[in-house]
């Protein structure tokens, strides 16, 4: 039971981990990208579109080449979220638009984009398949590590996930290392804290913000890809991804902008998200109250962090502000 709970929590947590790692990287450069929920939808649907055309080109499911089946959706997903990241950057960094408004517009667009193509992809290409169900490609995404089934609870907790889950953890650790131990990370944080100072020190604010936000978007988009191809078995359902994108933004605060805490934080959030399934005898309506736990916990963390006002626990100082050199 406990092993099952942990396994399910991890599977719920992985999309959140991708989303929050991407958003941390973005926020560290001073961009509060509220478009993450939309970008995760785009990342998911782009992967689905890629996989859909790849499966459509196969004569029989057995012909599928593992390498292509994984790399085509992966590249499509990366490309899709990269474009969304570029739109966000162009509007907020180059054109200095308001970040909140831009982010919300990206989310409206992205969720609409996902649901639109998820709902009408079949109609647009005129095939006779009843619904998008990419089991062939999905199976490659879901391939677990060897011995997952034969090692009991150990295998269940540690080995039973598709490769994207391990990628999420590696990316989070990589981000943590990058932000805290490298010169590039130092520059990135400098831009987020005080772009004017960073500019004076010779760091290109525009380039840093573009890079951080676009890479952050790509990472977040992978969360959408993981959700459809692995968690949902390659079946796209409209609004199926739900509010996980916002939960990922909540997670950023919960882990006080530290990607390595995100690994455990995402599993905890994932657990809170589904804990109601594991408490026996809950009425249907009480389950709904349990579903608000991750948000309530985030609010409490937000309050505690701001009340204690310790410098190392705060978000980047210039978070949400556009930078214009001539404006002092």
């Amino acid at each position: 039971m406990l092993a099952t709970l942990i396994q399910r929590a991890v599977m719920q947590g992985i999309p959140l981990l991708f989303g929050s790692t991407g958003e941390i990287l973005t926020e560290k450069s001073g961009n509060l990208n509220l478009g993450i929920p939309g970008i995760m939808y785009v990342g998911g649907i782009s992967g689905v579109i890629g996989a859909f055309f790849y499966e459509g080109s196969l004569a029989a499911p057995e012909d599928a080449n593992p390498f292509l089946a994984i790399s085509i959706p992966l590249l499509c997903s990366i490309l899709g979220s990269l474009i969304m990241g570029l739109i966000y950057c162009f509007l907020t960094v180059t054109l200095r638009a308001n970040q909140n408004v831009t982010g919300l517009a990206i989310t409206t667009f992205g969720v609409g984009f996902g649901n639109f193509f998820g709902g009408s992809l079949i109609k647009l290409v005129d095939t006779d398949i009843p619904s998008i169900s990419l089991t062939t490609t999905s199976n490659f995404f879901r391939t677990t590590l060897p011995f997952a089934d034969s090692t009991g609870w150990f295998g269940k907790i540690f080995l039973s996930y598709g490769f994207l889950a391990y990628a999420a953890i590696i990316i989070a650790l990589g981000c943590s290392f990058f932000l805290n131990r490298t010169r590039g990370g130092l520059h990135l944080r400098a831009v987020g804290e005080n772009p004017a100072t960073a500019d004076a020190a010779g760091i290109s604010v525009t380039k840093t913000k573009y890079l951080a936000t676009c890479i952050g978007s790509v990472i977040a988009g992978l969360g959408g890809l993981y959700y459809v191809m692995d968690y949902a078995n390659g079946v796209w359902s409209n609004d199926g991804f739900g509010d996980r994108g916002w939960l990922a933004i909540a997670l950023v605060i919960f882990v006080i902008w530290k990607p390595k805490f995100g690994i455990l934080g995402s599993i905890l959030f994932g657990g809170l998200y589904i804990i109601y399934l594991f408490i026996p005898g809950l009425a249907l309506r009480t389950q709904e109250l349990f579903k608000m736990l991750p948000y309530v916990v985030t609010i409490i963390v937000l309050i505690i962090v701001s009340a204690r006002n310790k410098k190392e626990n705060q978000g980047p100082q210039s978070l949400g502000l556009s930078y214009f050199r001539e404006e002092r």
Partner: protein
Amino acid sequence: MNKTKTHEPLFHIAKRDSLPVYKSWAIRGMAILAALIVAGVITMLLTGENPIQVYATMFKGAFGTSRRIWSLLQSLAMLLCVALAVTPAFKMRFWNIGAEGQVLIGGLATAACMITLGNKMPNALLILVMIAASMAAAAIWALIPAFFKAKFNTNETLFTLMMNYVAIQLVSYFEKLWENPKGSSNIGIINQSTHAGWLPTIGKFDYLLNIIVVLALAVFMYIYLKYSKHGYELTVVGESENTARYIGLNVKKVIMRTMILSGAICGIAGLLLVGGTNHTITTTTAGGRGFTAIMVSWLAKFNPIIMILTAFLITFLQAGAGEISTVFGLNESFSDIITGIIIFFIIGCEFFINYKLHFRSSHKEVK
């Protein structure tokens, strides 16, 4: 931007002092036009129809019949109401993106009154209780993040965002608590037979009352922001908190007072949606208006009267794109894509209103 020291950059950017009003609106108009062309081309690619046909369909969808016009006006009024609610907070630079939750809580309070007090007191009294309850509930919901912002400077964008989902789950809980009939997991039409707590209709126009209330609110908000002392104070806090403190304003009080107002108007939106329109409540009663309203308010530069136009633009697009998706058999999310594109363009064009590009004067060095 360009770091080459020996060459003059191709262009540099400077802030404009101010642009004549007609020019800035001409730029916005051009942006909307450009956006409509792009949206038309995309629709054309997806449906294979010519763009004129597409726009004709949009107009038909929005204004085709008198019923459609009324429902357009109703959606317009509701969106405008939420946009008016978030405006004073934005003007104070308090990013209240929790309007969605505040509307829901207002609606929930309304529904609670209708369900628990319906048929137990005179209808007029019930409606008064509903008005008070919805405004108070939503105001308190908005006050919570404002209180922590004032006390600890807690990030309000993220706080209000989280409050949305707490509100959604709360509604979801009550949906199941009050489910009718049993086992359906939704509330159904409240007091369908007695109409207790239903807001009165003016003549035979279902939505006229909503529209009048919201128009009155728009005028009120215009006067409040432009001519009242409160409006002045919150503008000062928005422009510079230090200045506000220097001239002896109680910044914390202004923040909390403004958010109570913001929340109370969201409560009215909830009241109108539940008591005057749907006569039921679901988790989607607010329907994303809390987020769309932010764009409406921002596009209008926080001017309540211009907000009528921007809210109209968004509502028209959604109704029109909805029609396109029905006629051409596309998914209904099509309207979100079109709305997104148009907003991108309008957001982008603000740059050309606020900043000026100076191109390099035509020297010999042409690359």
